[in-house]
């Protein structure tokens, strides 16, 4: 167990086989994660949409009821308060799912920046136990436990249904593994949480389900090049640098951070996020320095690891744009040794298209 932003969490479940087995269970079958550390902020009221639009960079007006989108909360400088998933639960009812480490900051920031709107802001983080059921077999596993018709729920949509006998449970087809999957939000009392967790494991036996920890969560999201706060995104990195342009809608009404992003766009990029694959022996790790072939320091690794499904050593790094050309090479200083790496497309892993 490790301390993760105040939560006592397992890096891996050794009895289930450890990180590699957990990772591959999600790619090939199904794995489940206790992600109750994630925070939840609900915005409700006649001006809830206006409030969400003001504080987030994606266009929430495009959300139908029951739809979700990846988005981010930005500082006026165009850098990240946090990345979020915005769920539209009802007519004037939105749920933002936020990171554990930024919870207090996020809640305060949302409250401070939505005061002018007729909208109630509630921190529901402690109300839910959030269980992620991830992998191609996730749908079949969860369908055994719910009356909701999951095949009708598309990726990044939410529904409600009875789960493990609990009525009106929020079921979202979302995740952080670059795989199909669901996240369910059940009441956080210990007895209910434990019962649901165990029932999911039991129901998943026929699909080979195993519990997965933070280690696999990290390697899975890294293969999918999904950003992690404090690594690829932070209060000093802006949207363009992080390559999250497609989630930032400059043509929607004004939002916090927009003006700075407009300026940054004109000024041009100083650095950009790239994918690296190690072509010499060595594993790039978070924080390792990146050098060009003349030995000049040009950037740093934000996340790096052995990738269990791809069976390669991969990394995400920030470098000036002139070094970002696909196929170009550079060196990552791995424990005082320069190890050659090549720029490759991200995401490193894309899940196979569903067969008809």
């Amino acid at each position, binding site marked *: 167990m490790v301390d993760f932003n105040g939560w006592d969490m397992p*890096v891996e479940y050794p009895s289930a086989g450890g990180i590699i087995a957990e990772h591959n269970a999600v790619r090939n079958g199904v794995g489940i994660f206790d992600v109750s550390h994630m925070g939840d902020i609900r915005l409700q009221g006649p001006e809830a949409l206006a409030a969400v639009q003001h504080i987030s960079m994606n266009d929430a007006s495009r959300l139908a009821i029951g739809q979700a989108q990846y988005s981010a909360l930005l500082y006026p400088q165009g850098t990240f308060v946090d990345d979020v998933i915005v769920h539209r639960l009802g007519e004037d009812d939105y749920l933002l799912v936020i990171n554990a480490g930024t919870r207090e900051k996020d809640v305060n920031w949302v409250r401070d920046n939505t005061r002018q709107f007729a909208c109630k802001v509630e921190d529901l983080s402690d109300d839910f136990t959030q269980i992620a059921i991830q992998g191609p077999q996730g749908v079949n596993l969860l369908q055994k436990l719910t009356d909701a018709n999951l095949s009708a729920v598309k990726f990044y949509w939410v529904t409600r249904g009875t789960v493990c006998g609990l009525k009106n449970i929020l079921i979202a087809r979302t995740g952080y593994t670059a795989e199909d999957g669901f996240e369910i939000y059940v009441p956080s009392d210990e007895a209910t949480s434990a019962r649901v967790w165990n029932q999911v494991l039991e129901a998943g036996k026929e699909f080979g389900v195993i519990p997965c920890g933070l280690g696999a969560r990290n390697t899975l999201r890294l293969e999918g090049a999904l950003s992690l706060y404090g690594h690829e995104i932070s209060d000093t990195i802006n949207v363009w640098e992080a390559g999250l342009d497609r989630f930032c809608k400059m043509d929607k009404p004004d939002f916090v951070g927009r003006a700075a992003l407009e300026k940054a766009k004109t000024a041009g990029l100083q650095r950009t996020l790239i994918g690296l694959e190690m072509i010499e022996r*060595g594993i790039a790790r978070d924080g390792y320095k990146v050098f060009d072939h003349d030995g000049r320091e040009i950037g740093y690794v934000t996340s790096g690891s*052995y990738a269990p499904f791809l069976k390669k050593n991969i990394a995400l790094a920030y470098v000036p744009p002139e070094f970002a050309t696909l196929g170009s090479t550079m060196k990552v200083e791995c*424990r005082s040794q320069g190890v050659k790496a090549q720029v490759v497309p991200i995401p490193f892993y894309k899940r196979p298209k569903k067969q008809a």
Partner: protein
Amino acid sequence: MPYPADYKYTKEHEWIKIDGNNATVGITDHAQESLGDIVFVELPKPGAEITAGKTFGSVESVKAVSDLYAPASGTVTEVNGDLATAPEKINKDAHASWMLKLKLKDPNELNGLLSAADYEKFVAEEGG
């Protein structure tokens, strides 16, 4: 997995098997268990000199990087090349998956190392 009685152990979780002036070195079962899935091993080349108590390489699992400390001083005579392509062998059987063979500089240097029983006790006290 039992700790072979004819090996000696370090508090940094390496084992050494001594055969006259020669020795074989690896990491312990406890070390592989704490590291989890091992995916990378960096070892010196044959001919390299290593010094007791100093790092001679590293071992990496998916989740962590760990230095390897020399249980004794000497010259590397052989390196287990299998581990470059199949480092997971260490997880399967750490006490058989040797890393280096050494020509010892001074066999007396080994007196400070732990016996199997002492190492087991040390690991238990360290809290697993």
